[in-house]
């Protein structure tokens, strides 16, 4: 369940931007001859609906109905007693609750002449819900649509980018604190939870994975408003010894830690506009060849728009060129032959290679300024940032 802060603040995202987001979808619907689009979301994956309305599906499932003309309506399996809260924290004024989407859709569209109902990002809809809608609306043509909303989320607006920068600073600070010496892994996780949720993150996932030599990877993934950030750092695993200055800090720690960090730096260097996820991985591969024998290594680029699912539905997109202005997580993960796992990661803003500051800039490095420039603080996530 999402249990962090939910707030609608027009100082962060102006009211006109919210209106424009819905209007852009409606214009696309008009072009494609679709009378109304349904956008599905559940607690695990609801960023399309959040992007359009700021609605937080903190639990269960919901469908946002967006007519080609008119106001969106939210259909949900949550109780009507949360409608007041949802109206207060979103741009939606009409909400309807029910136990199933078929009857809700029937009720919503009952007074309209049958037409074309488009299902946005249809391949991820529960297939039985699609069947249920088809049975409930026999006179309507159901059209399976692509990722119309997700595609618009790939490059954040100025307001969204400002929020990502704010969130990135919080993640960076938490990652550094979690790397302090003398903490047990669970205490490190607890510290990050307190920092991120205390700073207003909506969703937080923190893991502590150990390598066979005791080095611990603290991996942080968090949702700040509707943007996602990820960072991972290496710290000594033993309470009372090591810390960010050990495995994580460059000097000291096992040799493989330096290799992993150098691999991340190379991958981030390669994450410029026009590059692909495959190209980002390829840039790190020569360096990662120096990892201990038998280690298996993975380099991933995941757009922040896909981090709620860890990009697990987007693997087909590994050859798509990264556009300038996009934000994503670059991670380097090693699985060791003797067992154990290690990961380093940062969230970066992809710059324009033709601009002065081409290449990627880390948003989750301590000391990151408002202009996106990094200030090296010796933390493991910060070295080698592209400038």
């Amino acid at each position, binding site marked *: *369940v*999402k*249990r*962090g*802060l*939910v*707030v609608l603040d027009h100082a962060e995202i102006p009211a006109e931007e919210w209106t424009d987001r819905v209007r852009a979808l409606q214009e696309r619907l008009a072009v494609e001859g679709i009378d109304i689009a349904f956008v599905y979301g*559940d*607690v*695990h*994956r609801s960023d399309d609906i959040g992007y359009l309305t700021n609605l*937080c599906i*903190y*639990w269960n499932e919901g469908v946002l109905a967006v007519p080609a003309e008119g106001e969106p309506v939210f259909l949900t399996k949550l*109780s009507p*007693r*949360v409608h*007041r*809260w949802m109206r207060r*924290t979103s741009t939606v004024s009409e909400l309807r609750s029910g136990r199933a989407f078929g009857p809700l859709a029937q009720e919503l569209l009952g007074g309209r002449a049958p037409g074309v109902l488009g299902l946005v990002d*249809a*391949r*991820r*809809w*529960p*297939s*039985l*819900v*699609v069947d249920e809608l088809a049975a409930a609306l026999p006179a309507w043509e159901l059209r*399976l649509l692509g990722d119309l909303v997700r595609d618009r989320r790939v490059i954040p607006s100025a307001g969204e980018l400002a929020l990502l920068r704010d969130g990135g600073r919080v993640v960076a600070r938490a990652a550094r604190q979690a790397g302090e010496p003398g903490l047990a892994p*669970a*205490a490190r*996780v*607890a*510290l990050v*939870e*307190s920092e*991120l*949720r*205390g700073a*207003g993150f*909506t969703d*937080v*996932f*923190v*893991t502590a*994975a150990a390598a066979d030599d005791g080095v611990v990877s603290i991996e942080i993934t968090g949702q700040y408003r509707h943007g996602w950030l990820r960072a991972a750092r290496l710290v000594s695993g033993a309470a009372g010894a090591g810390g960010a200055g050990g495995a994580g800090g460059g000097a000291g720690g096992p040799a493989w830690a330096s290799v992993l960090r150098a691999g991340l730096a190379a991958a981030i260097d390669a994450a410029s506009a026009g590059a692909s996820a495959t190209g980002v991985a390829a840039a790190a591969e020569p360096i990662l060849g120096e990892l201990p024998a038998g280690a*298996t*290594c*993975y380099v991933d680029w995941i757009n922040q728009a896909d981090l*709620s*699912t*860890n990009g*697990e*539905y987007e*693997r*087909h997109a590994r050859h798509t060129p990264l556009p300038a202005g996009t934000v994503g997580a670059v991670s380097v*993960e090693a*699985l060791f032959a003797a067992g154990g*796992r290690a990961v380093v990661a940062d969230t970066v803003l992809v710059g324009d290679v033709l601009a002065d500051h081409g290449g990627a800039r880390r948003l989750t490095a301590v000391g990151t300024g408002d202009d996106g420039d990094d200030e090296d603080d010796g933390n493991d996530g910060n070295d080698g940032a592209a400038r």
Partner: protein
Amino acid sequence: MSDPMGGTMTRAGAGADTGSTADAAERAHRYRRVRAAMAERELDVLLAFAPGWRRENVRYLTDAALAASAAMALVPAAGEPSAFSARRADLPGIAGAGWVSDVHSLDLPEASALTDRLRAARPNRIGIAHLELLPLMLAQAVRQAVPAAEIVSATALMDDVRLVKSDWEIARMRRTAEVCAAGWQAFVDVLEPGLPEYRIVAEVESELKRLGAEDNFMLIASGGDDVRGMTAPGPRPLERGDMVRTELTPQLNGYWLQICRSAVVGEPSEGQRRSFELFNAAVEAGLSVVRPGVTAHEVAKAQNDVFRARGYGEYCTSQYTRVRGHGHGLHLDETPIIEGNKTVLPEGAVFIVHPNTYTPLAGYHVLGDPVVVTNTGYEVLVATERKLFSTAEPGESAGSTESTASADEGRSS
């Protein structure tokens, strides 16, 4: 492990004999139950699907923590099971748990490792647990792999199998109960005027994670008698006189358990005290009927009858809140305790009795305890006192409106 992107894990000798004797017995017990249920329904293959928010069935079959947005377990009527996860980092954990030795990446959208095994099984009839949540891309992959097979939902099958908890499971849930109690204590400790709701959650969450919780389901509401329900937290700062309500539900070693309490910032009002008395009487009434074989309907009715007898019956209707509790286990919200649900709750069933709803006395009130059905009645699993907590009271000893239930007592006759 095979090639980097294939992510296949095969663990020689993995299975029941790699864990402790108790783990092996538990695994054998579960697979016996699942296969007996499959035989009853004439299923050749059971597929358990785990989207990111409903992982209970795959966990039941693998005893492994999952982080993936999609995972599956495949159980043939005979032979070894297989498991699949879209999250690479899940694979060593599944193999390491030792319950399933054939572990693979769930490479979306093709899901080739899964569909290869489905084809090889040549099933006539497949049951899919959480078929209702299976995304179109996976449904199509399954259908194309075995076009002639009949596909039915096995969600209820797995709900039934998981309803009765073994001693092994209840031992785990007792540990979760300790974390529940600690989480509630952290909640009360942090309450003070001016603190925003989301900061309360931050502190509680930190404490739960420090104690090893994997996850937590938590809703919250603060304010006066205008509060109608709970949601995710907002920026509202606490005020003196507020009642702060929460459902706090940590997950530890896979098992969720919930505690429901309300606390007042400052001295409780007369309305808040009367509200507590009403809700506590309803909890007591619900608990009083718990014994092996009671139905969810009967537990709900016993609670609602207290509201009805005192003139608050309308607040138990669909206009407010009808659910009077729910089952616990590897899912936090198992069979609902609600009038009309004829599900029988046998010995070993675990659920929370909570009459949470709105009344005009003090707004939405939250109070409830999780119990396990014993051979003579029930046992309350959390040790936290059932009272109206107040920050005006020193320490934990305060509260003029206290109940008598605790983890050490509460057996009905």
